[in-house]
C-alpha cells in the first residue's frame, strides 16, 4: 500500500475516462479530507456519476492514481469496497422484498450475524422513519421512502466513507430537506461524504468544499463562500411604474443601465440586509418608490457562466469545447 496523508479519505490524480470516442473525464484531481462533505457540482452529463462509479469500483478508470479510504483503487478493490457505502442515482433497492428484508439482506451480506443484524435493521428503520412501512414490499414505497431506504441500506455496516450520487434529484421539497437532515447527522458522526449534485443550494447547504465539474475537468474548487464571491450573478431587481421614476432611480443609484422596455433596474448586490437598506435609503432620498423589488441569488447557471463562460444548459452538445482554456485555467487556479 502506498503511503498517503492520513487525513485524506479520497485522493485522485490525473483521472481519465473515455467511452469510445467520447472523453468523459479529462485529468481529474481531487482531495477529500476525512470527516468532511465534498460536493462535486455539475449539470447532467458533466461526468459526476462516472466519477462515483469509478471511485466506488464499479467501472475501471483509463488512467490516474486513486486512493480511496486508504487503499489503492486498482490494487485493493475489495478493501475499498469493505470501507465504503454507495447510494447511487437510481434506487438500488429490491422491489420485491420488504423494507426490513432489504436491510436484512445487507446485514447478511456484511456478515453481521443474526442478532446484531436484527438490532441494526431495527435501529435503521427507526432512524429513517420506516418502521410502519417495514413489512410492506418496497414496490409500494413513495420516491422519498425509497431514497431513505436506499441510504439506510448503505449505512448497515457503518461505512466511514459514503458516496451519494444526486441523493435528492426528483424528490419533493419536504423529502429533500429530510434527506439533508439525515446527511448532516452522518457528518456529525464523523462520516466522510462524497456528494454529487446539480443543485448549488444543496452543495451550499451541505458541503465543506465544492468542486465544479465541467467537461471532465474541475474548473473551480473551494468553499461555498469562496465560490460565490467569484460569482457576479447576485443582484437586486427593481420594477417601476413609469419611465419617470425609472430615470429618477437610475440617477439616484448612479452608473446603472435602466431597461426602458420593462421599466426595471438591475443592481449588483450580495443580498445582505445592510446592502438592501443602503439601496432603499438612496431611493427614499430621491423620493422614488419601486413597485416591486426582488433579490436574485446566484444559481448553478451563474456559477457556470462565471467559471466556464457558458451556461450549464447545453452541456450535452459537443460544440461547447470552445471555452477559452486560459480563462478556465485562471479560475481553476486556486
Amino acid at each position, binding site marked *: 500500500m502506498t503511503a498517503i496523508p492520513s487525513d485524506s479519505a479520497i485522493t485522485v490524480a490525473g483521472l481519465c475516462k473515455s467511452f469510445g470516442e467520447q472523453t468523459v473525464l479529462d485529468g481529474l484531481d481531487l482531495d477529500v479530507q476525512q470527516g468532511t462533505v465534498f460536493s462535486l457540482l455539475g449539470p447532467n452529463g458533466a461526468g459526476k456519476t462516472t466519477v462515483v462509479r469509478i471511485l466506488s469500483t*464499479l467501472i475501471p478508470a483509463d488512467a490516474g492514481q486513486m486512493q480511496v479510504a486508504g487503499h489503492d483503487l486498482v490494487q485493493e478493490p475489495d478493501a475499498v469496497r469493505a470501507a465504503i457505502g454507495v447510494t447511487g442515482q437510481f434506487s*438500488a*433497492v429490491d422491489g*420485491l422484498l420488504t423494507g426490513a428484508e432489504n436491510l436484512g439482506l445487507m446485514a447478511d*451480506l456484511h456478515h453481521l450475524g443474526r442478532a446484531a443484524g436484527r438490532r441494526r435493521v431495527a435501529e435503521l428503520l427507526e432512524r429513517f422513519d420506516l418502521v410502519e412501512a417495514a413489512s410492506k414490499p418496497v414496490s409500494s414505497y413513495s420516491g422519498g421512502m425509497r431514497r431513505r431506504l436506499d441510504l439506510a441500506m448503505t449505512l448497515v455496516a457503518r461505512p466511514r466513507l459514503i458516496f451519494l450520487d444526486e441523493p435528492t434529484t426528483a424528490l419533493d421539497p419536504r423529502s429533500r430537506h429530510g434527506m439533508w437532515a439525515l446527511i448532516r447527522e452522518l457528518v456529525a458522526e464523523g462520516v466522510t461524504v462524497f456528494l454529487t449534485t446539480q443543485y448549488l443550494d444543496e452543495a451550499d447547504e451541505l458541503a465543506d468544499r465544492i468542486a465544479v465539474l465541467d467537461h471532465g475537468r474541475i474548473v473551480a474548487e473551494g468553499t461555498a463562500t469562496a465560490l460565490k464571491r467569484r460569482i457576479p450573478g447576485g443582484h437586486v431587481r427593481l420594477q417601476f411604474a413609469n419611465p419617470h421614476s425609472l430615470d429618477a432611480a437610475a440617477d439616484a443609484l448612479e452608473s446603472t443601465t435602466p431597461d426602458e422596455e420593462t421599466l426595471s433596474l438591475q443592481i449588483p448586490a450580495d443580498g445582505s440586509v445592510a446592502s438592501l437598506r443602503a439601496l432603499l435609503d438612496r431611493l427614499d432620498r430621491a423620493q422614488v418608490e419601486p413597485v416591486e423589488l426582488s433579490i436574485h441569488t446566484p444559481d448553478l447557471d451563474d456559477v457556470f457562466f462565471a467559471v466556464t463562460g457558458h451556461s450549464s444548459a447545453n452541456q450535452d452538445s459537443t460544440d461547447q469545447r470552445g471555452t477559452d482554456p486560459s480563462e478556465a485555467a485562471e479560475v481553476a487556479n486556486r
Partner: protein
Amino acid sequence: MSTLAYSLTDSATMLRRQLKHILRYPSMTLMLLGMPIIFLLLFVYVFGGQLGAGLPGNGGGRGDYVNYLVPGILLLTVGMAVNGTAVSVAMDMTEGIVDRFRTMAIARVSVLTGHVLGSLIQAVASLIVVLGIALAIGYRPTAGPLAWLASLGVLVLFSFALIWLAVALGLTAKSVETASNTPLPLTLLPMLGSGFVPTDSMPAGLRQFAEYQPFTPVADTLRGLLSGTPVGGSVIAALAWSLGIALVSYLWAKRLYNRRYTR
C-alpha cells in the same frame, strides 16, 4: 471465516433472496408450470390415441403414449422453468440493486449462483408437480429406486446446464421483454427431438437435426431409465451435452456479468 466460507454464505443469502422473489411472484411460477401441464393433457387426451397407435413395435393406445410422452414433457417443464431464470436475471440487471452488490465486498458470482440455485429448486419442484399429474392420468414407469435416482440426477444436471444458459441469455438481453423471448427455443426443442414422437417418423433433414440435438439423448436416457429398458449410448451423450452446456454457459455468463461494467 475463509474466502470460500464467505462465498458460500453469500450464495446462501442470495438464494434466500431468490426464493423470496419466487414466493412473492407466484403468477410467474404458475405460468411456467401451466404450459407443460396443458401440453401433457392436450397430447394425452386429444392426440394420444392416434399417436399411441403410431408408436413403433406393436403400436399401442393412449396408455402407451403416456409412457412415451412423459420424459418429453419433463424436459419441456425444464425448458419453461429456465425461461423464468432469464426473466428474473434480466429484471435484476435493470434494477440498481446489482450495482449495489458490486460495490460491496461480497463474492461477486454469488448474485448469479443465487439465481441458479433458486431456479434449480423451482425446476425440481415443477418437475415433481408435473410428474404427479402424469402419474394421476395413467403414467406407469417401471423404474426401480436406483433408476429413479439416476433419472433425477440426469434431470437435475440437465436443468443446471439450461439454467446457466438462461442466466447468460438473461444477461445478454437489453430488456426484460427480450429476456422472456430468447429462451423460447428451449421449449420448442423437446418437440423437435424424441420428446413427443420417435424421430424415425420425421422427414430426413429434420430427423438428422432431431437425432443430434441435446434434448434427444436426454429424453431417450430418461425414457430408458424410467421404463426399465437399456439406455445404450444415449446416457453418455446426455451427460456430455449437459456438462458441455453447463461449462460453456457458465463461462459465458461470468464474462457477460463482468463485462456489463466496462462503461
